[in-house]
């Protein structure tokens, strides 16, 4: 059993007030809060270790490089990758998807097909639209079912010998649906296509094993898993990353540069041009350690308990409709109240110290699918409590009274 009050005490921000009230932070799908260990690691780097990585021969450069690479090894273990050079540091999930989409632009031909889904975040839509526009490939979209699950029958029909890449999210940020990615990966591979999984919402909630999953690419962001902003990971299978052309040119990513031609560095440096977010990468390890200490299975179990509780409580409010009622769901509740705009709910509960998200959650196609302007979204993390859910439910009831 997790000791939630002990966990909470590690997050300084959770004891602050917002609008004179105790903060209730339910916007974890957007970004999670940071434990003291992550904050300390980031500040300790600048206070004691600051130096550029992979460059100098001096002591500090060696120290920074060792710590930087330690995070890479930690992540390799965390996601069960075969090699540490299959871990590419990026700015975040968006950057990771753009890296792959940019590479595929050169690999795709006219008539090839890329398959995404209707539930994708804009960052897993727009890079593929750009990639297809420039390569002449066609973009196919797996539709959503009414309960927020993917229409797997249509998915199978969309797959063909023309399919070159499938890119879907592990967990929907707007609906909470956990997609059957094992099945999606198998079916994609059966056609000979490659697959990318957007794991932004999943990496701190579900145990990952890349070798078992067999995904070709998997990406996630540190800031959604208690780590710093501006750091993300692209995992890619060695042989595919070797085939993929580099993304950005610059320092670090080269072997030799001359005006007659440049050769590129080996993995992972080939995809890590320029000075990276060293402090962020080093602090990311503290975030992974935090998750490992709690145990991701324990986290998932507790979050499931919170999700069940919050779902049953919110459904007691008359007029509430939850979007995303998939059988397998993560701790995300997207809802509307009949006759009330989600924005109005968000504005009022904010005054009561509660942070929820309102709007389209960067998933406009989902909103279009359900014909709504947006939703109010509660997204849970391991430091949340049932008491906070009660406070939030009361605030929503108060907002409803004021607005109707």
């Amino acid at each position: 059993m997790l000791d939630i009050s002990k966990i909470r005490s590690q997050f300084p921000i959770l004891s602050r007030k917002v609008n004179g009230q105790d903060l209730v932070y339910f916007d974890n799908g957007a970004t999670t809060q940071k434990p003291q260990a992550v904050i300390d690691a980031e500040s300790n780097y600048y206070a004691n270790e600051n130096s550029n990585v992979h460059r100098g021969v001096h002591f500090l450069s060696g120290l920074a490089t060792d710590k930087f690479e330690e995070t890479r090894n930690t992540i390799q273990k965390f996601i069960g990758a075969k090699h540490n050079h299959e871990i590419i540091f990026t700015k975040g999930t968006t950057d990771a998807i753009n890296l792959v989409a940019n590479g595929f632009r050169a690999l795709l031909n006219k008539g090839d097909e890329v398959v995404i889904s209707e539930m994708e975040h804009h960052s897993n839509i727009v890079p593929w639209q750009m990639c297809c526009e420039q390569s002449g490939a066609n973009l196919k979209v797996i539709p959503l079912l009414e309960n927020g699950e993917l229409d797997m029958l249509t998915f199978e029909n969309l797959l063909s010998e023309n399919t070159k890449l499938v890119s879907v999210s592990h967990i929907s940020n707007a609906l909470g649906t956990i997609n059957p990615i094992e099945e999606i990966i198998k079916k994609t591979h059966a056609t000979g296509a490659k697959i990318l999984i957007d794991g932004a919402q999943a990496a701190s909630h579900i145990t990952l094993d890349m070798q078992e999953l067999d995904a070709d690419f998997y990406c996630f962001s540190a800031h959604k898993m208690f780590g710093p902003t501006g750091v993300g990971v692209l995992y890619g299978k060695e042989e595919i990353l070797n085939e993929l052309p580099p993304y950005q040119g610059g320092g670090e990513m080269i072997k030799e540069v001359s005006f007659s031609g440049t050769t590129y560095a080996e993995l992972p440096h080939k995809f890590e041009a320029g000075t990276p977010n060293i402090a962020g990468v080093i602090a990311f390890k503290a975030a992974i350690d935090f998750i490992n200490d709690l145990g991701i299975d324990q986290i998932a179990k507790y979050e499931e308990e919170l999700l069940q509780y919050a779902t049953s409580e919110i459904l007691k409010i008359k007029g509430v409709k939850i979007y995303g009622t998939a059988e397998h769901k993560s701790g995300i509740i997207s809802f509307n109240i009949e006759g009330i705009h989600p924005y109005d709910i968000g504005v009022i509960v904010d005054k009561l110290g509660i942070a929820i998200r309102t709007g389209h959650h960067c998933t406009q196609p989902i909103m279009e699918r359900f014909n709504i302007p947006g939703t109010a979204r509660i997204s849970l993390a391991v430091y949340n409590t049932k008491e906070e859910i009660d406070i939030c439910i009361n605030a929503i009831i108060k907002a409803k009274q004021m607005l109707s």
Partner: protein
Amino acid sequence: METIKEIQEEIIEDFEMFDDWMQKYEFLIDLGKELTPIEEQYKIEDNLIKGCQSRVWLHAEEKNGSIVYSADSDAIMTKGIIAILLRVLSNQKSEDIINADLSFIDEIGLKEQLSATRANGLVSMIKKIKLFALALGKR
């Protein structure tokens, strides 16, 4: 006819009566509910204000030398805010609207009630109101 300055002073007085944010919000919600809806034919893309989390439509026409606005939003709080803006700026002369110093917004604490993204929406609304005044005033 009351001037923009006079109406602003009245609104400041209205808001002085409120002790806390909840009363202010309830007042805004009431204003939103009372706002005369825009005619359906004016709810078009051109009249949509960008930069708001909720959708806001604004229409303007000239009547007897004054600019008359109508507006609507799908969110009630937004409607309340735009109702206040229109109470100040509708039925005024174009040059008065363009030159209006809307200091009442800060005085009634409207901006601090709104987070940054919503305050951007407020700025977009004022900009669109003034642009309409500029366009119609030139005719």
